[in-house]
């Protein structure tokens, strides 16, 4: 009865009164007073009346109200959804909106966009599975936005609302990636808002733990977040706040770990795609984004490690070698933008991975790059100490090198260790090098002589350091270095290095005791806790008995 009698006559009255205030108020009333099921069934009639109203009536607000009511109706009661389909609500509403926007060509853009936001909310509630509808709404918005000048704040806010709605609705970003008009809407945002939107997208992915699993989807994603990946506008570079910039780039770095596929071929494609994009980031961005990509690739290398390089089919499958070539290129880009310390660390990581894949030339190449960086780019003395220890630590674990290659690298490492600026640093690095000649594995190198050479060299440096302290400060420096070296002697003594005898150890103990007493006549050997606990350790080993106990028997503490 409502449909056939009540509504038509009411609408006729409204139209005929020709008073804009009354029309607006009455249309609002109709929407609010009558139940939603009625509106749904009479949609055509209702919408048909709108163009007949006075041109000054704010139809947008009425339409929005109607759509919001219908959206809420759909949200509250899932059973009514089929009815929406039956009356073709979406089509009717989007046509009506189109007509309104066309009729009022000079409305401010914010009005048109907010209409689209209402329609999008409606669509997401009523037809969430109809991505084509969603895309259609975005498309119509794009059309409206093209050719328009820059958006003002209110319009921008509406566009952000428009873009956020699908993100919130579809927790899986992959769905949003399928909306072809989504990137086109983003293009109309100014650079700042574009970046804000890109951050929202990344946050959505991180929050929902979404994995992006194909290179194609990665491409679309990077298109969306391009505001973060590269400078869209040359003039904005200086204005960016340091903290904001770091936050953005760290978000991109975290995002890279969400791009994954267990299939090595697809994963390699993903890595290549990411590389292509982050390489456009420029010197400020590379230090943030490159490490994530490197480790993502190293994980793939490890996955492939177990597999043999059998060529099946026509295409050559992804091999660790191929990935290492890629890694080399990427790290090279990093070292050319003044991040030598980071690049050195990454080269060493790759060297270790190449070692595990049994690729001697590749591992050697990575070590070469690391040494070149050390020689040419790392001048800070503290940085040098860390760098040389990383080189020694990595080299100590390498088992892929033949004698010649190994000799060249250990020679370089020991040489640089002895050339560090401060004597204590020299001493420590040199005795660390002793471990390069003794690896505890079954097939590990066990060159007792070269170990002893390193330790003796360390002792000489420690002596020199003591003498320097005497001259420079009038009193001898702490005996720490000597005790450290003593501990190293003990280490190799226990491992069975034939070059180190109990006499050697006894001699060193006496040397240290003399050094401590030489400082002040009242000093007791127990005044140095490090020395004391070392002696206690020897005592403990003696009391343990067995083979070790026997070794220590002749040492007196």
């Amino acid at each position, binding site marked *: 009865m409502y449909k056939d009698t009540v509504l038509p006559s009411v609408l006729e009255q409204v139209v005929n009164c020709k008073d804009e205030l009354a029309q607006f108020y009455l249309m609002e009333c109709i929407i609010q007073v009558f139940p939603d099921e009625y509106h749904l069934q009479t949609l055509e009639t209702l919408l048909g009346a709108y163009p007949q109203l006075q041109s000054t009536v704010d139809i947008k607000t009425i339409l929005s109200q109607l759509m919001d009511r219908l959206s809420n109706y759909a949200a509250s009661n899932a059973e009514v959804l089929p009815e929406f389909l039956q009356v073709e609500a979406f089509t009717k509403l989007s046509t009506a909106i189109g007509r309104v926007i066309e009729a009022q060509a000079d409305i401010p853009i914010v009005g048109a966009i907010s209409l689209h936001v209402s329609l999008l909310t409606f669509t997401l509630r009523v037809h969430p599975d109809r991505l084509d509808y969603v895309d259609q709404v975005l498309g119509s918005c794009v059309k409206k936005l093209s050719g328009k000048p820059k958006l003002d704040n209110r319009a921008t806010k509406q566009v952000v609302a428009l873009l956020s709605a699908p993100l919130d609705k579809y927790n899986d970003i992959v769905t949003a990636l399928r909306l072809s008009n989504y990137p086109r809407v983003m293009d109309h945002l100014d650079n700042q808002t574009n970046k804000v939107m890109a951050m929202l997208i990344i946050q959505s992915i991180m929050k929902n733990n979404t994995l992006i699993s194909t290179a194609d989807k990665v491409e679309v994603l990077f298109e969306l977040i391009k505001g973060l990946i590269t400078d869209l506008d040359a003039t904005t570079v200086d204005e960016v706040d340091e903290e904001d910039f770091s936050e953005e780039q760290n978000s991109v770095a975290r995002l890279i770990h969400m791009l994954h596929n267990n299939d090595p071929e697809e994963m390699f494609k993903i890595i290549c795609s990411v590389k292509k994009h982050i390489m456009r980031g420029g010197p400020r961005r590379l230090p943030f984004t490159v490490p994530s990509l490197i480790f993502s690739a190293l994980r793939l290398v490890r996955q492939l490690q177990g597999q043999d390089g059998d060529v099946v089919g026509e295409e050559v499958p992804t091999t660790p070698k191929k990935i290492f070539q890629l890694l080399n290129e990427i790290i090279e880009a990093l070292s050319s933008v003044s991040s030598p310390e980071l690049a050195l660390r990454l080269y060493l990581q790759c060297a270790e991975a190449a070692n595990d894949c049994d690729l001697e030339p590749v591992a050697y190449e990575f070590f070469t790059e690391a040494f070149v960086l050390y020689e040419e780019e790392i001048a800070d003395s503290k940085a040098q100490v860390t760098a040389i220890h990383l080189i020694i630590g990595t080299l100590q674990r390498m088992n892929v090198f033949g004698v010649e290659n190994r000799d060249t690298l250990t020679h370089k490492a020991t040489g640089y260790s002895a050339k560090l600026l401060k004597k204590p640093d020299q001493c420590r690095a040199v005795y660390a090098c002793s471990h390069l000649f003794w690896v505890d594995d079954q097939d590990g190198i066990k060159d007792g002589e070269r170990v002893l050479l390193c330790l003796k060299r360390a002792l000489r440096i420690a002596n020199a350091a003591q003498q320097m302290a005497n001259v420079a400060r009038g009193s001898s420096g702490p005996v720490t270095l000597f005790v450290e070296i003593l501990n190293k002697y003990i280490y190799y003594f226990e491992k069975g290095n034939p070059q180190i005898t109990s006499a050697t150890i006894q001699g060193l103990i006496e040397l240290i005791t003399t050094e401590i007493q030489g400082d002040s006549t009242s000093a007791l050997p127990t005044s140095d806790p*490090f020395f004391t606990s070392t002696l*206690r350790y020897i005592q403990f080993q003696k009391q343990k008995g067995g083979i070790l106990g026997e070794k220590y028997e002749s040492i007196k503490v």
Partner: protein
Amino acid sequence: MVLVLALGDLHIPHRAPDLPAKFKSMLVPGKIQHIICTGNLSIKEVHDYLKTLCPDLHITRGEYDEDTRYPETKTLTIGQFKLGLCHGHQVIPWGDLDSLAMLQRQLDVDILVTGHTHQFTAYKHEGGVVINPGSATGAHSSITYDVNPSFVLMDIDGLRVVVYVYELIDGEVKVDKIDFKKTASIHTAH
């Protein structure tokens, strides 16, 4: 009863996007009295997050840490125990117990906490205990394959410390505990 959280090698954002959700929900502010961190956070955001869990935060420098001002080693006293903290990349060979024992003697501590290998370990030897809390995010390591996210919670009570290790294995948090008792005679008074 004093609770000390020991963790490290998160490598955020280089090797991992975040702590595992199950760990995050367990680490609630106000429950822990001290946090000791072996290093390699690696960014300020992680530092700030740890600070919200507990204001008494101690960190040593890892080779990837953005903030290079963290110290190489740190020692602190909690109750009857002296604790030592060091990332571990400075001690070669990496992960070698005897070399770590030397560092322990040098720092003169009962409990030495180090990282770098991303492998949880807890050794008791003549001089005390060496603990490696592993990597809290399960970050990729060149040293250890198949890293499970892990961290350690120490309950220090008088001369006894109970070390709880939390490991995320196949999506489930597994807990294990080890008891250590300190004999009063280990450290002679100076």
